């Protein structure tokens, strides 16, 4: 049977399938549905220094082949995550997890990353400098090469585990930002976060989302994700975790051929809660079908 394991900065995953941050909570909701140990790992809900309620509702809207969300980083804060969520997760997940971190200042990013870096359950840190739904933080760090590099450098100073920077597609040139992160010491790149979008309620003649704008996800954005992974792969030497509208085992192979070492699945978890398990199950057969003996051979395969 085809080999499915991949390695992210020295951490070997049984397979490249990773539920994306914000669509999988802290894991245990899904552990009620299936044994989540079948996953490569997962990226937990974006965590900040302080607890956050997030934006007002409505936070969700339907779009063609996708959805908008403007949750705004609702989370219990890093101290509660360490005290309550991680021990609960340990009961149902024996693998290490990706700690997704967001912040509103360099100090906050460092504070949260440093604390999570010390947790034995954390395999790597995914620093989100691309949340489009918060103001005065989040994405504003990810829209210039200089600020992206600064966050990377500061977080690297206080951490020991691999640091992956999660990039925004809402920029003029994502390649420049990815390069700046690599030069500042990033161990890997995650991309893409959601695309900034908007929907208007015809009856109310007002934006449907309370936050006015939201992040577009779902299969509608998959081709954008493939293109950006392709471009960034050409420009950096560090591993890429590819994501953005991935919703089938075929999509996993496609984005890996564009250059991803591992793949996150986001919005699809919300409409089909078993999708990650089903993709993990389907993957070996699909690899056989395409004559792939080891999934690692296809990483960036479309460039060769």
């Amino acid at each position, binding site marked *: 049977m085809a080999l499915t394991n991949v390695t992210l900065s020295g951490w070997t995953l049984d397979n490249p399938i990773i539920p994306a941050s914000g669509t999988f909570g802290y894991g245990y909701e899904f552990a009620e549905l299936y044994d989540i140990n079948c996953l490569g790992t997962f990226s937990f809900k974006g965590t900040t220094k302080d607890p956050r309620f997030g934006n*007002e509702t409505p936070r969700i809207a339907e779009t063609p082949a996708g959805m908008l969300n403007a949750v705004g980083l609702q989370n219990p804060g890093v101290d509660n995550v360490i005290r309550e969520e991680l021990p609960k997760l340990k009961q149902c997940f024996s693998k290490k997890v990706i700690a997704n971190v967001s912040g509103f200042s360099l100090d906050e990013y460092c504070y949260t990353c440093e604390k999570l870096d010390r947790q034995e359950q954390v395999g790597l840190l995914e620093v989100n400098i691309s949340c489009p739904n918060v103001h005065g933080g989040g994405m504003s760090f990810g829209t210039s090469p200089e600020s992206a590099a600064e966050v990377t450098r500061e977080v690297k100073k206080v951490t020991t585990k691999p640091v992956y920077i999660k990039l925004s597609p809402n920029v003029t040139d994502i390649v420049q930002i990815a390069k700046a992160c690599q030069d500042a010491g990033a161990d890997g790149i995650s991309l893409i976060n959601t695309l900034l979008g908007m929907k208007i309620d015809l009856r109310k003649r007002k934006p449907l989302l309370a936050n006015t704008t939201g992040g577009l996800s779902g299969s509608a954005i998959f081709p954008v994700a493939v293109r950006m992974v392709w471009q960034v792969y050409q420009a950096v030497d560090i591993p890429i975790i590819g994501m953005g509208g991935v919703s089938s085992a075929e999509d996993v192979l496609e984005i890996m051929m564009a250059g991803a070492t591992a793949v996150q699945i986001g919005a699809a978890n*919300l409409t089909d809660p078993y999708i990650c398990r089903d993709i993990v199950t389907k993957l070996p057969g699909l690899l056989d079908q395409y004559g792939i003996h080891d999934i690692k051979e296809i990483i960036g395969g479309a460039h060769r």
Partner: protein
Amino acid sequence: MQQKQFLVKENKKIAKNTYQIILLGDCSAIKKSGQFVNIKIEGLFLRRPISVCDAEENRLTLIYKTVGKGTSLLAEAQPGDKFDLLTGLGNGYDTAKSGASPLLVGGGAGVPPLYNLCKRLIAEGKKPTVILGFNAKDEIFYEPEFSALGASVIVTTVDGSYGKKGFVTDAFAETDYTYIYTCGPEPMLKSVYQKAKTSGQFSFEERMGCGFGACMGCSCKTLAGNKRICKEGPVLEKEEILWH
């Protein structure tokens, strides 16, 4: 929660813009009145959450209003069509708190979940009174069904075209009750909250992403902390509601 396939047995219009669909499939995950299901509709990305009107072992009844693309597509479903449902979502009503003569107050599309609740309360030997509020006569549904369960039923219409003229709360004076269960549009819930003489349980609505607690799309603040309408709700205790 379960993910199950259901077969359409019947889908018919029962009032203005209001449809009743009967689906055959495994309802075993639906444990309480006031829970909901999340239906996958071909051509749409997000599922559509709809409250359970009634659930027997293998037969699920939903009543929905055509308010947008999803419900309009659902209205076109034909007998024999198949749907993928997530069932047994949300917390549902707690009948243990009802006392001997609970009051059930439903407004428009908020009426359906009260049907199974009424059935359950009567099975428990309680004597519910039901107030069903609609805008006008052509929107009314399920009055005979509630009566057939053995509940005393009062219908109100805003325009006075049927039953008592006014809002559901205008019928409160005629009733004596031990507890309130309600579901309906938020302005109605707020008015019920203000007029209620007893404690009660209120079922809320919100735009949802997943419907099972993963996305935090439908969070609300309560006096008992942040809750997800889809998971710790849709039913909130009167004492924990924080109006905004």
